């Protein structure tokens, strides 16, 4: 145990991998923000909609109208500071807060990889990523260290490992493995992909993709850890993520993952990379190679930092299992689905027609969802129970403000999952206006009529 602790936690290792990670992370995030802005998504996703779906407990996080742009500017600037390693601690805190704020504004846009970025940036608050090859280190030689404790780099490796491994575990279910669902639906529709397109309608290809995908996710953290398999593993990383990029609209994520996995490489690789960058920008690299070792003295600050990180990882390891506390099929109820690395796992879509009833008069009418929601919001709302409930509450408030009294909200909702025929999703007799959001099971979800075996 002591040996393990010494080797992977406290032993001094080269700081270069962490520095490279910091720079690439900052650059990728900046590109991500610029890309998001240039597509007009800030306007479209955060300014135009009339209503925003909140995370339970974060109802106070809302877009700020035109000032929403400001949050993106702050986020982008802090990413630059992170990349430069200038006022790093402050920069990464600001980045974490602004990025997370953006993600909390509307649950509609939830993506696992945004969550991943939030977690990573949170973790980075506690890492001495500015110890090497940074402006901070240049300006203040006292803060410059060539070597840092091993846990700092291993923390990031662990985070990446969790993402991959849990994403792999989530695929170990009968739909994915034995029905090749949802790839059986998705792949044939990509028939116009160059080179690959003509094969995607073949059933064996769909199975091969499913099994390879699951195997890849489960194995890749280990293959990256071992020196012998590492070059091959990295090749797999590139092939895998480029393929997903070609086939699916997943934005920056593949590039972020490809770049992140570089941290698994030996420090010699990172030194070479940094030497190259040094040459390019005429930064004298040798000034950072000062032989200084960062040793965290055992004091309250260090210890509490380690406790925070330990708790952080404990939560990460447990979070994906919380679905076990809920009855019913996870894919159907989605209770415990988010924040668990369940990526591209199901083809699910729904249709929800809301009925507004004035309890006193018995008069009723249907809601035209497009009056309140964007097409994207409507799409996401119509198969996720927490969205449906929040929207129902919004409708009640809206129509009561309009002068209707004692409003009841009912929904006729049908959902199809992984190629099954659509069935009724929400009990149409339940007045959703009376139901409250909580972490408890939502008893008004009609149980799944089929069975999906596995994790």
């Amino acid at each position, binding site marked *: 145990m002591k040996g393990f602790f010494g080797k992977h936690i406290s032993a001094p290792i080269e700081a270069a991998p962490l520095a490279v990670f910091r720079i690439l992370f900052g650059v990728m995030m900046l590109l991500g923000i610029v890309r998001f802005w240039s597509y007009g*998504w800030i306007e479209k996703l955060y300014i135009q909609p009339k209503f925003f779906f909140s995370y339970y407990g974060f109802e106070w996080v809302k877009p700020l109208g035109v000032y929403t742009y400001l949050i993106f500017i702050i986020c982008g600037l802090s990413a630059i500071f992170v990349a430069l390693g200038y006022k790093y601690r402050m920069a990464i805190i600001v980045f974490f807060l602004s990025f997370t704020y953006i993600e909390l504004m509307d649950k509609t846009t939830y993506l696992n990889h945004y969550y991943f970025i939030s977690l990573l940036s949170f973790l980075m608050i506690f890492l001495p990523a500015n110890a090497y090859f940074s402006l901070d280190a240049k300006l203040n030689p006292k803060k410059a260290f060539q070597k840092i404790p091993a846990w700092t780099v291993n923390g990031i490796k662990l985070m990446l490992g969790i993402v991959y491994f849990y994403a792999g575990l989530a695929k170990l279910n009968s739909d994915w493995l034995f029905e090749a669902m949802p790839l059986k639906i998705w792949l044939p529709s990509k*028939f116009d992909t160059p080179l690959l397109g003509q094969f995607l*309608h073949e059933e*064996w290809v769909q199975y091969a993709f499913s099994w390879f995908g699951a195997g890849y996710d489960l194995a890749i953290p280990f293959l990256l850890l071992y020196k012998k398999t590492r070059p091959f593993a990295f090749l797999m990383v590139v092939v895998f993520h480029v393929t997903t990029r070609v086939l699916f609209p997943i934005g920056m994520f593949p590039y972020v993952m490809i770049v992140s996995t570089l941290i698994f490489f030996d420090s010699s690789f990172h030194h070479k990379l940094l030497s190259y960058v040094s040459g390019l920008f005429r930064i004298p690299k040798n000034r950072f190679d000062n032989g200084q070792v960062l040793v965290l003295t055992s004091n309250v600050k260090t210890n509490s930092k380690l406790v925070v990180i330990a708790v952080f990882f404990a939560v990460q390891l447990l979070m994906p299992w919380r679905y076990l506390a809920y009855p019913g099929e996870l894919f159907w109820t989605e209770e415990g689905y988010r924040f668990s690395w369940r990526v591209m796992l199901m083809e699910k879509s729904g249709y929800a027609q809301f009925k507004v009833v004035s309890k006193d008069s018995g008069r009723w009418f249907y*809601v035209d969802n497009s009056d309140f929601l964007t097409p994207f919001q409507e799409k996401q709302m119509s198969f996720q129970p927490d969205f449906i409930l929040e929207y129902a509450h919004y409708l009640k408030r809206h129509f009561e403000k309009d002068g209707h009294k004692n409003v009841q909200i009912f929904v006729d909702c049908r959902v199809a999952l992984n190629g099954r*025929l*659509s069935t009724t999703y929400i009990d149409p007799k339940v007045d959703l206006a009376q139901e409250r959001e909580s972490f408890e099971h939502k008893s008004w979800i009609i149980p799944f009529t089929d069975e999906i075996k596995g994790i």
Partner: protein
Amino acid sequence: MRRFFALFTVATMIWACSSDSSGGGSSDDVDPEPESVSFERGPMLANWADNIIKPSYEAFSSEMSDLQTAFDTFKADATETNLVAFRDSWLSAYKMWQRVSMFEIGPAETVGLRLNMNIYPTDGPKIDGFVTSGTYDLGLASNRNAKGFPALDYLINGLGDTDTDIVAKYNGAEKENLIAYTEAIIADMSSLTSGVLAEWNSGYRDTFVANDGASATASVDRFINDYIFYFEKYLRAGKMGIPLGAFSESVLPQNVEAYYKADVSNELFIEGFEAVHDFFNGVHYGKTTSGESLASYLDALNEVKDGEDLTKLINEQFDLAKTKVEALAPFRQELEDNVPPKNMLLAYDEVQRIVPLFKVDMVSAMSVSIDFVDADGD
């Protein structure tokens, strides 16, 4: 670690075995595996364009010519007989319109054909004002509720209680203005129609068919969106739901299609409903033959669910809904005579049931994204 590899090995073996049993040799004594999906979108687009869309527009264009002829006769001699002939021509063209209204893509989308041809309820007082003043601009978006088929409905059926009264108007003090306004509306409709048809004949057809990829901007994806949108908003809601008060708490009989004619709204609905159904099955316009279609696409995707295939379920729901609607009186009568209009509500529910079949089941089977959602997924 070792356990992991063990797991992985086992998994790989299961895969190896299962793929053996499913992808294995196709000897004669074993049922051949279902054909893998190799549906080509190009031929479906060609079938849509050449056998459904273009012939429908051509037929509609010829209906518009007939309408013009009938109007010319009426214009020359505003008798009751000629009014009846003019009205018949209007109804016939209106019915044909129901067969092209759903094709709001390409040239029709550019000019906003549907919004220019068939906005109802029409604004009677506004039309009266235009007739009296003799000045109006039918090109203005704000005047869409004073032109097209609904305006003609008002001018042919709504100016008086009896044909005698109506003919009297056309021979009365505002005779010239009335004729001129009616003529202007028909001219506007004809020119829009011939413009759209001309574009389909001069290149758009090839653009439409050539765009046979799979993306939010490909013809199939876009048209499926337009098609479902038409069904949901214009057919289901516009012709039935809104007049029924499904979205407004109280019935709105004045919002039925062809309100002044009063007894054809159900016929117009059925015509549009059949057109959507025929389109689903790829039935060639005016013929009993059919080609590649949404139905054959679904069949090719081999979406057998619940022991029944989706094509069959959709067709059955269409048939059921049609039976229910056919049993109804004209909608205005249903709404004015029944409180609440129970039978029409029940028929509406059956029409409504097609929406999730399209929007959820069909769309997800084809992996078409509903409406152009331009954001990342994960």
